[in-house]
């Protein structure tokens, strides 16, 4: 009793061959096109320039390998099964009602559980090791305080006593601790993809991100979290230089006439977009603590350990 | 005879369905309240330098409100016993008393609110007061809706008499009323007793 709707398909030659060929051609063309496009460009996630980014990259490769090892065979089996048991294949004279392999159910559950256990086993320690709040090593890090404001980044160097806007320079192979907060700003995110992952900046909170760079160069920084109209323009440059060059740079900035007093601070706090880099040889006392205090009444803010 | 049985079987099935659906609705209402409770739990200490619950609340007032509501649940229960017996007059009397008790509760709550507001403690003052007013205000709004429901149903019972469809409506109303009473117990415990602990 096999009513198959309206029958009579005259040319039933696989109507799937041509579209699949076109799809494969498109995919191949795209592959080469994209390879050409990205030549010489900063594919940041595959281009780690710091310890944390490197470890994240390793974790990424491991995870993708495990997942592809599970998924690709499954897909091959699925599409092969579909093709082999297609109606027009007279070789497989099917028993459409068959199928009582008790073990199938066990495999169906066991395979994904095993894969997830393997991943979880790596993921748990990695998450702890790569927690942004965790110091890189036992030595004292270079502290840089970050204030996100509309729509620019203010960097304060408490030890060197200088401040910059939309530009941050750090010495190579030195642990850096970014302490970040925000002022008159929705939630934003501080991100230098070549050096490591992002962390949110929130008013009244102090988040800590520990990074260490291992290659000299200029790297882009941005905020992936949308925070208003000027969102796309809120970019900064992170420059990694040698120790000597870093000290030189600090001396240079200290000799500049501009200082970040409270009037200037109010000025840059006002919303503006696509700001160019600025440098200040001094800043108002306890500026960072004052910013945090504005929202919480306590200089520590809401700490994220 | 057969037709009569089929009709009442159909009606019984429909009643069962409606009651079940009403329970599911009550659960969604409970979930909404749990958001408000969670928000209160997170924010109740954020007074931004203002007065805390301990300084603002009057435990005797809250206790009175609680007793009023508990008693009204009791009278509501008696009214439902009368409803299932088909006793129209008892239903009207006992739901009438429930109504008055609910109204008294609302009155006291409004008085508490206006005292706070007159002293400058409004829902705009800080996060603690925002969550206090919205939690209790939502409960008070539900009580108001319950009272409106009670009043209209009683009026229709006077006009049309107490039939099985009315009893079903009263059952849902009483479930709603008891539910609000339970929510109030949580409010009393978490908000008022919690402020003094």
């Amino acid at each position: 009793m096999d009513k198959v709707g309206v029958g009579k398909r005259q040319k039933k030659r696989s109507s799937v061959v041509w579209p699949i060929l076109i799809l494969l051609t498109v995919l191949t063309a795209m592959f080469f096109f994209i390879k050409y496009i990205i030549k010489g460009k900063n594919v940041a996630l595959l281009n780690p320039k710091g310890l944390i980014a490197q470890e994240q990259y390793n974790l990424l490769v491991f995870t993708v390998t495990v997942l592809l090892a599970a998924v690709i065979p499954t897909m091959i089996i699925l599409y092969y099964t579909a093709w082999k048991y297609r109606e027009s294949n007279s070789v497989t004279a099917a028993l459409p009602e068959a199928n009582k392999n008790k073990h199938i159910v066990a495999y169906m559950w066991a395979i994904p559980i095993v894969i997830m256990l393997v991943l979880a086993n790596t993921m748990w320690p990695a998450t702890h090791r790569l927690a942004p709040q965790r110091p890189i090593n036992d030595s004292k890090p270079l502290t840089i305080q970050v204030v996100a404001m509309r729509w620019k980044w203010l960097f304060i160097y408490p030890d060197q006593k200088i401040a910059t806007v939309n530009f941050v320079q750090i010495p190579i192979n030195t642990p850096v601790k970014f302490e970040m907060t925000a002022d008159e700003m929705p939630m934003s995110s501080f991100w230098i993809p070549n050096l490591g992952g992002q962390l949110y900046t929130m008013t009244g909170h102090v988040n800590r991100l520990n990074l260490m760079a291992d290659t000299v160069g200029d790297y882009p920084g941005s905020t992936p979290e949308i925070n208003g109209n000027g969102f796309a323009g809120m970019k900064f440059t992170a420059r990694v230089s040698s120790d000597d060059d870093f000290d030189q740079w600090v001396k240079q900035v200290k000799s500049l006439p501009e200082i970040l007093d409270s009037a200037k601070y109010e000025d840059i706090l006002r919303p503006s977009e696509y700001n160019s880099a600025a440098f200040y040889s001094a800043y108002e006392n306890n500026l960072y603590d004052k910013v945090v205090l504005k929202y919480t009444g306590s200089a520590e803010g809401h700490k994220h350990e | 005879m057969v037709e009569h049985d089929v009709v009442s079987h159909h009606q019984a099935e429909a009643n069962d369905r409606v009651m079940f659906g009403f329970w599911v609705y009550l659960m969604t209402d409970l979930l909404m309240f749990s958001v408000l409770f969670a928000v209160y739990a997170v924010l109740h200490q954020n007074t931004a330098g203002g007065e805390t619950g301990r300084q603002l609340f009057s435990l005797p007032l809250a206790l009175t409100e609680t007793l009023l509501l508990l008693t009204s649940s009791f009278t509501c229960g008696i009214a439902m016993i009368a409803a299932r017996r088909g006793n129209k007059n008892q239903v009207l009397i006992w739901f009438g008393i429930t109504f008055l008790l609910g109204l008294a509760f609302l009155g006291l709550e409004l008085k508490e609110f206006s005292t706070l507001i007159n002293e400058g403690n409004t829902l705009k003052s800080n996060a603690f007061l925002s969550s206090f007013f919205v939690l209790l205000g939502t409960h008070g709004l539900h009580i108001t809706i319950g009272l409106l429901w009670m009043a209209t149903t009683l009026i229709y019972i006077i006009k049309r008499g107490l039939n099985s469809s009315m009893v079903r409506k009263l059952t849902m109303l009483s479930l709603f009323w008891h539910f609000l009473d339970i929510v109030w117990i949580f409010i009393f415990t978490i908000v008022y007793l919690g402020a003094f602990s």
Partner: protein
Amino acid sequence: MKEFLVGKLNWSDLPHDWVMFGGTATFILTFIVALVVLIRTNKLKWLWNEWLTSVDPKKIGIMYFISGGVMLLRGGLDVLLMWAQQALSSGDSRGFLTAEHYQEIFTAHGNIMVFFVAMAFIFGLINYIVPLQIGARDLASPFLNTLGFWLFIGGIVMVNMFFVFGGHYAATGWLAVAPLSGKEFSPGVGVDYWIWSLMISGIGTTLGAINFIMTILKMRAPGMKLLKMPLFTWGSLCSMIMAVTVFPLLTATLFLVYFDRVLGTHFFTTLGGGDPMMYTNLIWMWGHPEVYVLILPAFGVFSEVVSTFSRKPIASYKSAVAGMIGVSAFALSVWLHHFFTMGAGADVNAFFGIMTMVIAIPTSVLVFNWIATMYKGKIKFDTPMLWFMGFVAIFAIGGITGVMLAIPPIDFQLHNSLFLVAHFHSTVIGGVLFGIFCAISYWFPKFTGIRLNERIGKLAFWFWVIGFCLSFIPMYVLGFMGASRRLDHYDASTGWQPLFILMFIGGLVIAIGVAMQLAQILASFIQKNKLRDVTGGDPWNGRTLEWATSSPPQFYNFTVIPQVSSVDAYWEMKQQGIQKPVYEDIHMPKNTAVGIYISIYGTLASFAFVWEINWIIVVSIIGIIVTFIRRAFTEDSEYTITAAEVQKLEEKRIKKSLEDDKHKADDSEEEMGVIELVKFIINFVLNIIKNKSWRKW
């Protein structure tokens, strides 16, 4: 005085740029044209009586489909605007949209696609198919059904209202994170429109979910125990239980955002003790289960389609059910993975990462189940099965990228990048949307009695798949290059522009695919005699009860509620031979306009809440209360069809279907392709011009 009368309404808020004007003109023109057509063809009364006030879940289902389809076009147009902007806006060029407008477009796009396309189609499918699958005549509460539908329409009105009444939409992203959504950072009415469109449709969804749960748990045919229900019904049940659990959370949270904006409360503000992080938690406690609400019915559809087209029962019914329940249960425990980067400690992040990975387990089980079902089957690759084949590959990519994102250190690099956007579009388009397309092509013969044109259908499928690859593979690459989502402009030195151009081209290919789908439906109706289903309602040799009815089913679904004793109930009935019906009285609900009235008041109230017009708020709320009370005390909401009348209706239906079968043209007439369809349309238009038939108007 003016403020009392019209609140914050202002002439200066009316649309004043050409991109917006396009939208305004489209809405107003469409409305006028529709009205004129209805009046001239004398169909206004028919529309009101037969469709708008109907409580028949089949009719409500069709209305959901049409609304969802229209909103799909609206949301799709948003995509083309977005991708055009991104393709152009590199280096010195800023594209043709301001940053603010661009941000409003992607916010509207997200809300429309989730609430008014995906939810619409799913609610339409559940409405139409679930009662048929469980052997019921209607949903548990026909009144809640029509009310829920019209509240959903109210939501559509609210999300598009700014085109006509002024203002603008939210520019915050589809979930309007705090404090960006507060009055300080979003001072206009945009976020208020956002709040109220979601509020009113969310309430409709909650009522609908309650209704579906009541129906599935209380109205199954005798003998249909829970573990004998079809898998689409199971998927719908799990989905609706999740919906009923989390939509109240959304409603409460939306109220809190509104209070912050309008009453000055301090729930999520930066000062006054507010806590924006709490908003993030609350909104994602709703937001994550919501996407599982969308995917579970799709899993159900695919399970049934694979089984039917392989001519085999599903390999392990119990595993499929367990898989769906597993996904639902765990869906409620993973929400933090949306904000690993907010700064929680490693223990918290790792815990939620593990829970997220756990969900991949029941999902994989479902996939293996489908493979085992196809194994040793005899598979027919009609269009529904094609959509399944496309779904598996794309959803698998979505799954892999999802597990990657579930690992916090990796997420730190991928959060809010275009990689994330590509991930969730892979699951939502590959899973939910393809599931919807699969369902529509599978059940279209049931809805209309006509099979869909296969030639054009297959073409549409391939355009979708190729377009999807062209658009989303570059998106994954861009994510790896450090490109964030929602950017309206970027530096030329990044080298991203060619990839954005590629995305836009892919968008055009997908647009062609959508046009093909519309063409497919048109061609099917044009050749409806050739494509008529003459199998008496069972064109695919189906296994479940909905195929036991005529196509389309009678308004009372079944003449007699069937007795069920196994999974794949209809398959079993066919093996045993179908009994001759014994007619009995049927009780049906009456149509009602109350749903429409309450929704009109609700939409008015929402509008008034947005523009702070207090007197309209008061009047609308009183309207809602009074209408609801009057409906609640209506005793007379059903009517009876006697057994004799049922018999007459059945005889009439059989006679008509025999006549229709006679009209069926020979098989020799070829199924239309795209070229033939275009020729047909050109001829049709030329004929109208030649015969000057517009004069009749």
